[in-house]
């Protein structure tokens, strides 16, 4: 069975058309039969060949009669509600395909914008120059989405729903105001909980300073080996935050 894509147009070659007709008619009958059996429903098919005045039918002459009369017993509206011909059927298919296309495009767009966001995080100085307003808008939206996710996760951690959270004490990498060096989890939680407003400015600034420093790889922070800071011109997003610098399993 060939899997070449068939062009949806009348087959002009007579013998090819005849062969195709024979195969496809057979396949069609099979499909009707399967549908009827699998779903336990009544069905019938009438196919006229261009080569024969007598139609081929499924399931049988009697079967067709039965189904057709059942059909005729239905109220007119019910009959026509789901009735299609080639014209309307094709229009339906086009509409559905357009819907799917729209959705796929939207999904792809979202993926792209997310990519830009992640890459911007990595190399820091990625230029936003080439983005137009629409891009910027979408980027902003995606950033907000991510921030929302993060806030939620942080909240979960604060509420102790998550074991990963509390590892705050005496980190080498992050200097904290003395008050949070306390061992008590409760206190630490309180600190974190009030993070946005209370006396964290210093901490936040320190962190931000650290970030900014990170984004200027000329300044060596002395946290790790020389191989970690990649040259600034490197456009790969893993330039700064590569594994060597940010080991995933920190021990504080």
């Amino acid at each position, binding site marked *: 069975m060939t899997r070449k894509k068939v062009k949806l147009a009348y087959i002009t070659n007579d013998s090819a058309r005849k062969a195709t007709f024979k195969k496809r008619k057979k396949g069609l009958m099979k499909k009707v039969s399967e549908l009827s059996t699998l779903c336990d429903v009544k069905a019938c098919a*009438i196919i006229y060949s261009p080569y024969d005045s007598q139609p081929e039918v499924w399931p049988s002459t009697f079967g067709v009669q039965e189904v057709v009369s059942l059909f005729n017993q239905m109220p007119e509206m019910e009959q026509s509600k789901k009735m299609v011909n080639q014209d309307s059927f094709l229009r339906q298919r086009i509409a559905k395909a357009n819907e799917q296309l729209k959705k796929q495009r939207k999904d792809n767009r979202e993926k*792209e914008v997310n990519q830009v966001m992640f890459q911007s995080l990595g190399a820091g100085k990625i230029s936003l120059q080439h983005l137009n307003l629409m891009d910027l808008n979408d980027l902003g939206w995606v950033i907000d989405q991510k921030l929302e996710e*993060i806030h939620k996760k942080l909240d979960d951690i604060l509420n102790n729903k998550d074991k990963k959270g509390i590892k705050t004490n005496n980190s080498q990498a992050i200097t904290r105001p003395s008050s949070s060096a306390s061992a008590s989890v409760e206190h630490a939680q309180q600190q974190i909980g009030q993070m946005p407003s209370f006396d964290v400015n210093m901490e936040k600034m320190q962190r931000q300073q650290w970030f900014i420093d990170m984004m200027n790889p000329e300044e060596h922070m002395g946290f790790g080996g020389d191989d970690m800071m990649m040259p600034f011109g490197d456009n790969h997003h893993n330039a700064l935050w590569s594994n060597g610098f940010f080991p995933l399993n920190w021990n504080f």
Partner: protein
Amino acid sequence: MPRTSKGRQKLSMVKIENESNRQVTFSKRRAGLFKKASELSTLCGAESAIIVFSPGKKVFSYGHPSVEAIFDRYLTGNIPPTSGTFQLIEAHRHVRVHELNLKLTQVLNQLEAEKKQGEELDKIRRASQNQCWWEQPIDTLDRTQLELMKVSLEELRNKVANQAEKLLFQTSNPSQILPSTSTIKAPPFDSKYNGFNTNTKPYGYNHGFGSGFC
């Protein structure tokens, strides 16, 4: 993207017991059946009719040139007329159907292209996830990482806002500000970050920049 269905299963030809599965199968197979019938008509010029009752007792029917015409022909044995007018009508219909088929093919091709692009994007994402911890799912990050990300993102958001403001107030060349709306086909995706498809549809999200531009 996780698998949403079981894929192709070998099916035994008996009634499907599970009612929900039966309904889903009916839906899909009915659509496929009509599609096959439609193709038969297009490819070979065959005239046909199919009637199917649904598990929910609704009736679906397909007919070419129409269900009524086929019934009529079948029940009365009348071959359709070959009058001049009739032929003209038929000719028109053929043209219309032909155009619809072309349009359908076009949209399906576009859909396939977009799907491929989606897969490419997934591939890229997976690759960069291996290298950048901040691309991992939020659930896998620890507090410190989350805090870091938060600050970075906020900073980035500011940059974005500033840049947008800058663009908004550019009066020298308005045509550069407004995104192009004319193109329908997306250009091939540039996998480096400086290729942005600016013609694809936006979310319609208003980031507080003002009502006008999305």
